């Protein structure tokens, strides 16, 4: 589903060129769940932004569902994101002036789906927020906002879901609920999941973990199946 070949990112600072991501190559299979873990500033979010086509690579190749993103301009990448990608963010990133229902409808509307509202209502029910449809984000709790964000991410039935610290802003109880919901939906819809976290518990639920350190991919290992199973049961 994702294929990278020597991707790196260099930025220009006042002190000159700075390589914030050293050349990395790895693949993610369809339906796989991958956690990118590492300390703050290790380059996790940069990697995520490149994988999701939110930023351009400085070097290397990156294929998303077979399409070469390094050759695309911002418009083409937006199109690709709209068609194949879903997002979940630490700070929820809901549009404050739209209601919960309208926030969920947004990707479907952007993609031009005629049944955006029906889809949104269905998925809102799925995340258990049908009674909050007409509430604005600032009228919802953090957990509820993230559930809206998850619903928004799944409405377009994306092939890949990118999640940036999806539980980073939540308390323990809400974190558990969100994790559960995320993995359930992920499994049911057979979506590829790439999430960035420094929460090892969350990372352990993924099939594979990529460890980042100082802009380098230091380790790639598969999470033991038993651990995954235990986590899911728990």
């Amino acid at each position, binding site marked *: 589903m994702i294929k990278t070949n020597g991707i790196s990112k260099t930025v220009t600072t006042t002190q000159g060129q700075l390589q914030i991501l050293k050349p990395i190559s790895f693949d993610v299979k369809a339906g796989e769940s991958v956690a990118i873990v590492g300390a703050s500033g290790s380059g996790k979010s940069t990697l995520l932004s490149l994988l999701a086509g*939110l*930023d351009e690579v400085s070097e290397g190749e990156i294929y998303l569902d077979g399409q070469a993103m390094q050759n695309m301009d911002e418009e083409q990448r937006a199109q690709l994101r*709209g068609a194949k990608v879903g*997002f979940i963010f630490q700070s929820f990133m*809901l*549009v404050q002036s*739209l209601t919960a229902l309208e926030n969920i409808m947004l990707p479907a509307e952007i993609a031009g789906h005629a049944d955006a509202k029906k889809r949104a209502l269905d998925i809102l029910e799925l995340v258990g927020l049908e009674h909050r449809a007409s509430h604005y984000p*600032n009228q919802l709790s953090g957990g509820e906002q993230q559930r809206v964000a998850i619903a928004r991410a799944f409405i377009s039935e994306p092939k890949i879901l990118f999640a940036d610290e999806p539980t980073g802003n939540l308390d323990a109880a809400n974190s558990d609920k969100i994790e559960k919901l995320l993995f359930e939906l992920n499994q049911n819809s057979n979506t590829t999941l790439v999430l960035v976290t420094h929460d090892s518990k969350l990372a352990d639920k993924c099939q594979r973990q990529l460890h980042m350190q100082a802009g380098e991919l230091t380790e790639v290992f598969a999470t033991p199946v038993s651990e995954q199973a235990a986590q899911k049961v728990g």
Partner: protein
Amino acid sequence: MTNHTLSLAWRLFRHETKRGELTIILLAIILSVASVLSLSLFSERLKSALTEKSAEFIAADRVLDSNKPVDLAWIEKAQQMGLNTAHQTYARSMVFANEQMDLVDLRAADKGYPLKGEVKVAEKPFSPGTAINQLPNSGEAWLESQLFQTLAINIGDSIEVGDKIFKVSKVLTEVPDAGFSVFGGDPKVLISKVDLAATNVEGPGSRVNYSYFFTGEGDVLDEYYDWLEPQLDRELHDWDSIEDDESGIGRAVGRAGKYFLLASLLAIVLAAVSIAVAAQRYSMRHYDPVAIMKTLGAPKKMVQQIYLLQILFITILGLLIGVVLGFLIQQLVVAAIADKVDVSIDVWHWKPLIIAIFTGSVCAILFSLYPLMKLFSVSPLRVLRRDLGANLSSRLIQFVASGGAIFLLMWAYSQNIEVSAILFVSGIILVISLLAMTFGLIWVGRKLGQGKMGAWQLAWARIHRRAMDNSVQLISFAVTIMLLLIVLVMRNDMVQQWQNQLPQGTPNYFLVNISQAQQPNLQQHFADNQVVIEKFYPVVRGRFVAVNDEKVRTAVSKEDPDEQTRGRDGLGREANLTWSNTLQKGTEVVKGKWLGDNDDTDTVAERPYEVSIEQGIAERMDLSLGDKLTFNIGSEIVDLEVTSIRNVNWQSMQPNFFFVIEPRALKSFIPTYISSFNLPTERKADITELMKPFANVTLIDVDARINQLRNIVDQVSLAVEFILVLVLAAGALVLIAQVQASMDERQQELAILRTLGAKGTLIRASVVFEFIIIGVVAGAMAAAATEFSLYMLQTQIFEMPANWHLEYWFIAPIVGALVVGVLGALGCWRLLSLNTSHLLRQMV
């Protein structure tokens, strides 16, 4: 555009309106439309009212003056077009009674006269007149007061005019088209037109002029003139309207018109500034939604459409509310001053509505364009990196775009590139100075903001850190303060100047023909009666016979338009010549040197006599420095050389002269004297008693003319006050919007400080200090820019003397500090009244 885009834009607009997200930008558009509409509608109505009022001074909307009777078909054509017409014939003629005679200004009017204004009459000479809605019957004549004196007659007596005898039935106290000069005009006699032929004054060689009066709709009058113009002969005909009027009224109305225009232009700029501020804020608040939409795959075009549609919805809503509000404000103002200024609210003017809608739309679109472009450039990566702003960072584009837009708006509106350029250039200078000042501040702030973190240090630290944002804010504050100062100072200077022209105690009576022997007695007698008499001017009468040895008769009749003849001349016959070594107050030499200046005593006897002539007569008669003028005084011929040309203020109601001659030339002639005095209206009855011992002295009553002038100046001044109040209100709203917008940007910092446990008093004091500093700087810069703009405006546009306004160099920074400080404190108080978690939540 897809239905989804439209529906998304509409939904965003609806929700954001409901949640108050669009309030500021909506208010800015409403403000621009409402202020421009109310100002221009009001000034349009006021202008018609003033033009209507001023039209009384020429007794019509338009006057065709002619030296010969005009083709009757011209008048019939005017009537066919729906215009009202009237006609009056003027003749200089001798009037005889009781073996006395006098040269008079004979006016024979037909029944339509006057089309505008009123004729006033009295039953006794020198008593106040009352308006009368008729003209003298056939065989009757109405005479001005002084004629009763010179001809020694009473009401009911007979006078002889040419070949016809008239019965004197009333004292004529006022005609609307009297003109404003005091001398040269002969006493008026009004008769009916039907009697004119019987007098036989219209003979060959007589000086007769014909005036044809027209009133009607402005466009019909213009259409008529278009038809008439090709048939007019410049040598014979003169087409006048009050706008062409060079008198005090004409100029006052013209200047007031320019003032209204200026005020409206400034209102447009104010509105534009507030829209720019609001649009900037709007754009910044939408960085996140744009980043989200882009992340979710929205193409750039869709994002652009959504936000352009929103601006369109906001603009339409703003226009609708603004038009209604502007109309209501204007209606309120008109109602409030209805008893003082005769403004008709029945007439609807479309132009202001079109201007207001045009202004509102152009402002809303052009001034939100750059903030929107910035908004569109927001990267989707912002969803991960919250510190990312817009990629478009050239403020130069913004300045050029908004500056160009303001200039175009001003130009389009005023159709006066001069006014627009002056305001615009001073704006640019202000902006550049402010930028320099801001960077100075950054430097100072770095020094002052160091040390223990108190409110003062916090304030400086914030100014320092937000230097660029502050510079924009500073500029908008300073521009607002500057515009308000300009409107205020212009109003003060203008009203002051009008009032100075006719201060309390302006002479309302003139004494002519005082003999040398009478002079001391008269002075004593007036002093005994507590009447202050002004300076005595010696006068001899002389006939102007030649210019550079060329006889003047043809030159005079050819060049002398009868408007001038009627008004202020005396050149067709004898002129009043005075002599003086000193230049009269209120006059200045514009060319040459004043009489006897730089003279060497040895050469005085050898050079020709010098004369100083008035500028208007110099232009009219094509006289220049060095010309030789020949006068016939008594039986002597006197040659004079023009050595200076003076500018005389004819509106001053002081004795003024076309010719002032050096005393040496006239020492062998026995003069009479002219003087003037002020007698308050309540003492008007004393005049007969006062003049009794001096039966031969002619008394000229100009009270009516002064009152006419005062009346219009008062009305114009009052109207200007209301315009000022409207612009001040607009300016205050803009300031509030600006503080509100900048408060928003401070929210995050306040929330953090609050969370960290900073006391409310510290936060409040630091914000207030910050605003006070900004207010002082903005005020000082505004004072400087105002001084520059005022100098340009007063000298180039309003044709009035420019002066320094030092007081505003103190007032502006203080007022700036106070107003901006208080508004800042209020805004801050609102934020601090919210609890911290609410503040934090609003930031997400």
